[in-house]
């Protein structure tokens, strides 16, 4: 990360090198808002002088990047600098913004690779979606007691494996989760329990 004075125009506007004019226009409006003199988000952060300088730089970045000829020239200069070891990587805040949209819709949650869907984990996910067991039971036609045991991983009370798999698939569907991925992950606990019992 570099100081504002060392950031490229692309860094400053938080856009990629290939950004379209429309993207640049949107980014410019956003930055002008953040660094306006009445912006609450930067309250007390900058002296009036600094604020003026930053705004002037943002204006200049916008002027250059929205003018085809000026932008091409700027890119050439940037490429030349990079060859000499100047790194002008984009800041990446835009990527963060896109990767972390606030308030995702229930069911639209992306579970990273390797996430373990345990009984307790599924219960937590269900509760965070504000769905109770009664609703799941109505949707899946699985009785509530079995659903409770499923969440508690009380395998000794549940029927045979093939049924458990069926239950968990229906349960996952009711939560709008990938049913097979959930089942594969969940059943690991079942196999562990089964192995322990054999010993």
């Amino acid at each position, binding site marked *: 990360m570099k100081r504002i004075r060392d950031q490229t125009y692309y860094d400053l506007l*938080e856009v990629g090198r290939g950004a379209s004019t429309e993207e640049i226009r949107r980014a410019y409006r956003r930055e002008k808002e953040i660094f306006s003199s009445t912006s609450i*988000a*930067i309250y*007390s952060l900058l002296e009036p002088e600094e604020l003026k300088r930053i705004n002037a730089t943002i204006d200049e970045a916008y002027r250059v990047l929205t003018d085809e000829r000026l932008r091409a020239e700027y890119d050439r200069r940037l490429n030349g600098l990079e060859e000499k070891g100047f790194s002008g990587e984009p800041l990446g805040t835009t990527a963060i913004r896109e990767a*972390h949209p606030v308030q995702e819709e229930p069911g639209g949650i992306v579970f990273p690779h390797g996430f373990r869907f345990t009984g*307790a984990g599924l219960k937590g996910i269900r509760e965070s979606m*504000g769905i109770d067991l009664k609703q799941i039971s109505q949707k899946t036609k699985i009785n509530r007691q079995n659903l409770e045991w499923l969440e508690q991983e009380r395998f000794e009370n549940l029927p045979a494996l093939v049924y458990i798999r069926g239950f968990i698939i229906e349960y996952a569907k009711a939560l709008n989760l990938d049913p097979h991925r959930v089942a594969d992950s969940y059943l690991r606990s079942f196999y562990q329990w089964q192995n322990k019992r054999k010993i």
Partner: protein
Amino acid sequence: MVSLSGDQGDGSEARKGRRTIWTIGGGKGGSGKTFIAVNLGICLSRFGGEVVLIDTDLGGANIHTFLGLSYPKRTLSDFINKRVEGIRDVVMDTDIPNLGLVVGAQDLLNAANPKEPQKWKLIRHINSLDVDYIILDLGAGSSFNVLDFFLISKNEILVATPEPTCIENTYRFIKSAFFRKVKKVISHFGVKEIIDMAMDQRNERGIKTPFDLIELAGEIDKSIGLRLEQELESFRPKLIINQVRTKSDVDIGFSMQSAFLKYFGISMDYLGYIVYDDEVWQSIQKRKPLVLEFPQSRASKCINEITLKLILDKPFLFDSEE
């Protein structure tokens, strides 16, 4: 003393080294740190792991009130004053399965200002507590005590409300936290002196941002400058905006994220926001946690979303072999 009823989840063997500590700070009093700590703790406990909430607001402890509990027999001051052996002895049960609580010292002046060795002992004990999740609720202000607790883990959470006064404190708090953090890893006497100077808002060297400090330190010793740069890159506090009323209040989080990165060089994760809800006020009046009393409220949903984001980031629910 604690007997958290957890019949599911991994055993204590499996969770060794997987414990996660979140510290909740932000400088301004009344921004909702304790409210968030309590409700987050409850949401986390539903995932089956053992959670302990620790009130480190020494001198102004009130986390038990949020849970509708009376002031307990054993508190942190018993630990600080060596009346009990370990921090385990002051963890009390709550009505919520998997959720334990350590109440801060409420009245004792000497507990409100623990001596350095006492503080580090406390921090050491917190770090060795054998549970899955620990949430540290911090007091207001940016005193060294508050900052040291804030920096216990790499999972620092800032709470701010969308008001100029609070935002001003947040910037000051995070700047002080960074300076405090780097002071501990640098042994060069001259650089330490500069860091001390930087702590003063109106310092004569004109150090206003981490960049200024790095530049000055780099002039003294290039390798220290590089070291500080690494520290800056690895510092990734998370932000929650509380008491959000409008769309533009929500956007303040994004704008702060952007300003943090551009001006301070600090990459901050905007975890989410909590809407301003009358039910929050009602739940506090009733001394009942929001997510239990009003689980369908909009604010509860916001807290649930934040919990999921935190938990998805952590290894506890992951298969180790994958």
